């Protein structure tokens, strides 16, 4: 509470006050909440509280899906505006861990206001606030839609204002996609509220169990999915690092290329699925290097054409290794073509310009940048500015100018954490280092022409 700025405090007090007035007035005025409503109200409040107390955060950071919406909207139909406000107000008692009192107060108050407003709209549109009888279901539809159309946006507005006043949200950062996702999922939950209300006449509270059980199981499955996802990301990172431990200086290269590629992807507005895919592609782009004989990698000076061909084969080797994994096809293309150049002088296929898959153009930039900003056995790391200048210089010949621009913007905005100085390997530690990093655009591999 103390850390809140004063406008947020004022806002909090206002919202709580309005909610209090609405509920108080409703309770004082007779006939707003008949005695026969109390058992239903109690069951709904309990349900709402259970839903509200379960940790709700789901896969999207922008929208925490909460089943409690369904209970609140069912209350609008079953126990009317004041009842809905009371049900909403029980959010104050939520036992969700890590939720301080002032947040619970605000949640309860805003749910109460939304419930009251939705109840008012419901009645205004001709809905009767009572357990709907079995044969009158269709009459319920119109008023209920109206109520949901008020509840969901009002809730969103009250919440957004609070977040922006508390300085936790900058309006220009809210992605439109996130808002749309939020609205759709909440309208879905509103439908479930309608189902609960519509079935109440037949089986009372069992209707809520029947509707919400699949949702709770869905949430459990989402939780399992997220746990697997995290575990998977950790595993793939660890395995990729294992592949590159052999070369002392390239340790951590794969994770950094992965995050740089993701930064570019985000900057050019890729969807979440593709962004995840390019993260994996960036992570795995060099696994094929293990197929290149160590003596070729460590050879000082010029390589023979045959040796150079062995290096050029590593994207194909990498593809061969990861081909059995169910990634987006683009990820495979990214791994295979990450050494193509805009001018068509790259390998393995010599593609040029727009022929090069988008993923590969992104990884190429990320790969070269990390190589330049890391220490190598034969040179020190370049500064970020130097490396960016080099990217700019090669843009159009080696790199796609669009991706270079996007990367520069992303680094400007979010910064870049270079790997730091690699201490020279200890004398007693036997390490391997490559003579020349094949990713380094400033030190091209020289090939002896045999002709």
């Amino acid at each position, binding site marked *: 509470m103390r850390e809140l700025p004063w406008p947020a405090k004022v806002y909090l007090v206002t919202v709580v006050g309005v909610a209090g007035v609405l509920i108080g007035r409703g309770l004082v005025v007779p006939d707003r909440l008949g005695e026969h409503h109390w058992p239903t109200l109690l069951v709904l409040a309990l349900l709402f509280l259970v839903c509200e107390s379960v940790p709700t955060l789901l896969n999207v950071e922008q929208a925490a899906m909460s089943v409690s919406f369904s209970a609140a909207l069912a209350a609008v139909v079953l126990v009317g505006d004041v009842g809905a406000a009371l049900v909403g107000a029980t959010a104050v008692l939520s036992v969700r861990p890590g939720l301080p009192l002032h947040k619970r107060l605000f949640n309860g108050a805003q749910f109460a206001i939304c419930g009251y407003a939705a109840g008012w709209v419901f009645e205004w549109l001709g809905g009767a606030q009572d357990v709907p009888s*079995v*044969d009158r*279901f*269709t009459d319920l539809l119109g008023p209920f839609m109206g109520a949901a159309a008020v509840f969901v946006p009002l809730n969103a507005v009250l919440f957004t204002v609070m977040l922006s006043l508390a300085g936790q949200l900058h309006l220009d950062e809210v992605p439109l996609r996130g808002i749309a996702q939020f609205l759709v999922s909440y309208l*879905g939950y509103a*439908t*479930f509220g309608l*189902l609960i209300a*519509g079935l109440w*006449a*037949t*089986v009372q509270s069992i*209707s809520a*169990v*029947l*509707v*919400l*059980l*699949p*949702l709770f*199981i*869905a*949430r*459990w*499955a*989402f939780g*399992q*999915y997220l746990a*697997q*996802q*995290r*575990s*998977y990301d*950790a*595993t*793939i*990172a*660890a*395995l*990729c*690092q*294992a*592949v590159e*431990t*052999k070369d002392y200086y390239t340790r951590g290269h794969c994770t950094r290329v992965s995050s740089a590629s993701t930064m570019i992807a985000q900057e050019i507005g890729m969807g979440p699925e593709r962004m995840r895919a390019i993260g994996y592609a960036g992570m795995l782009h060099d*696994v*094929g290097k*293990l*197929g290149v004989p*160590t003596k070729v990698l460590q050879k000082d000076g010029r390589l023979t054409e045959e040796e150079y061909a062995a290096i050029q084969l590593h994207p194909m*080797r990498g593809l*061969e*290794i*990861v*081909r*059995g*994994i*169910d990634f987006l096809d683009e990820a495979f293309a990214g791994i295979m073509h990450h050494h193509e150049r805009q001018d068509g002088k790259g390998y393995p296929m010599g593609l040029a310009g727009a022929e090069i898959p988008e993923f590969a153009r992104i990884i190429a930039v990320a790969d070269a940048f990390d190589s330049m900003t890391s220490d190598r056995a034969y040179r020190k790391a370049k500064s970020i500015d130097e490396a960016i200048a080099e990217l700019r210089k090669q843009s159009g010949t080696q790199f796609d100018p669009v991706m270079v621009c996007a990367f520069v913007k992303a680094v400007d905005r979010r910064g870049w954490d270079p790997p730091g100085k690699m201490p020279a390997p200890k004398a007693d530690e*036997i390490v*391997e280092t490559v003579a020349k990093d094949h990713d380094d655009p400033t030190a091209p591999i020289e090939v002896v022409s045999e002709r």
Partner: protein
Amino acid sequence: MTLATRPMQGLDSGQLLLICAAGMVTVAGIAHTAAVGLVDTQIAIAFGALVAAGELARLTMPGNREVAPIGAAAALGYTLLLDVGGVPTRHSALQVVAVMSAGMTLGALPHLAVGRPPRLDAIARRLLSGALLAFAYRPLASLLYATTDDGKGTWWVVLGVMAVLITAMLAADVVIAAVLRAEQVRTALRVAIRDELRMAAPLGAAVAASGTLLALASHSMNLAALVVFAAPLLVTQVAFRKYAGIRATYLQTVRALARVTEVGGYVEPGHSRRVSHLSLAIGRELGMAEPELLELEYAALMHDIGQLSLRDPIPGGATVLTDPVQARSIAELGAEIIKKTGVLDRVADIVRRQGDPFTGRDVPPLASRIIKAANAYDDLVGGSTDRDRAAAALERLRLDGGDEYDPAVVESMARVIDRLTPATRL
């Protein structure tokens, strides 16, 4: 895991029996319906369409289990249906079977068209368990509807009967699935039942709730609400699909990345895959449950990953012939790599102890003992299917049994190998 790609081949006798039973029930249902005509046509078509949609949206859960939750819930709803908007329904159990099979066939057609035929045993099981419930419940339908006093009295009796029968059906379904699985992967029935139960419980509960919801909803709302009532289950299905997807990708990724040791020339081509296959078969033979088997598979695939930290590949990569000190250090290095994931601690432990001898007070975990034996066998035999070579290798492991290798593991390995290479027996 190869069964999905060739569903028509390698059917066990249990699967054949199941498919025949389902086929007979289907024929009976369709013949009966054709003879007496479709009762309550509109309702039948609506539910049949939902079954078809569910079949279209079927998914494959971990362990190559094909499920169609929305289709199952629709079939359940149609079975349990007592009235639509106060008008009692009169469809018979055989009509339920006919609608189910028609819907499933329709939903499977688009998959067939793109070359993804359904697994026959899975679709037969779905049909048969639905039919079982229909035969138990439909004869009671008019009686049960009377207890609701034409829709105005209490529904609690109906709910109770529904709950009991659905539970019985799900239990029967789990047992059928377990019998099939036990036969298919050669594991103990007890273990298979536990595995199936663990996999089926969450999705089964969601399907049961949604099926009941569909039946009850048709009482107070008309059929238009059918789609809406499948919505909670749709959310569940999306969640499970994501979960199944990441599980599959996880396994594929570990399988793929375990191959880097082969590409790098540290081990012979196919070594990790063969060791993991053999280890899994032994683990099943010894009655390990599925979560343990998954850890065993990961550990077996990655058992040589420690070699990546070696300066030069061991010639031929045969760890059984290298000196124990080096083998131990490879195991330690491998465990260190796996430990870095932060989540596969038990797998790391298995890999760390893969070289430990069977003697001594501190017996290594079963998974480690299995990998040790399987690894040694593959080092001796390689990809060869020559039975003399296999017998010689087994003899050598037996000689070391009780000392280096766990005799129980070696014996079950002998049984597995005997089974896996019958083609070369003359």
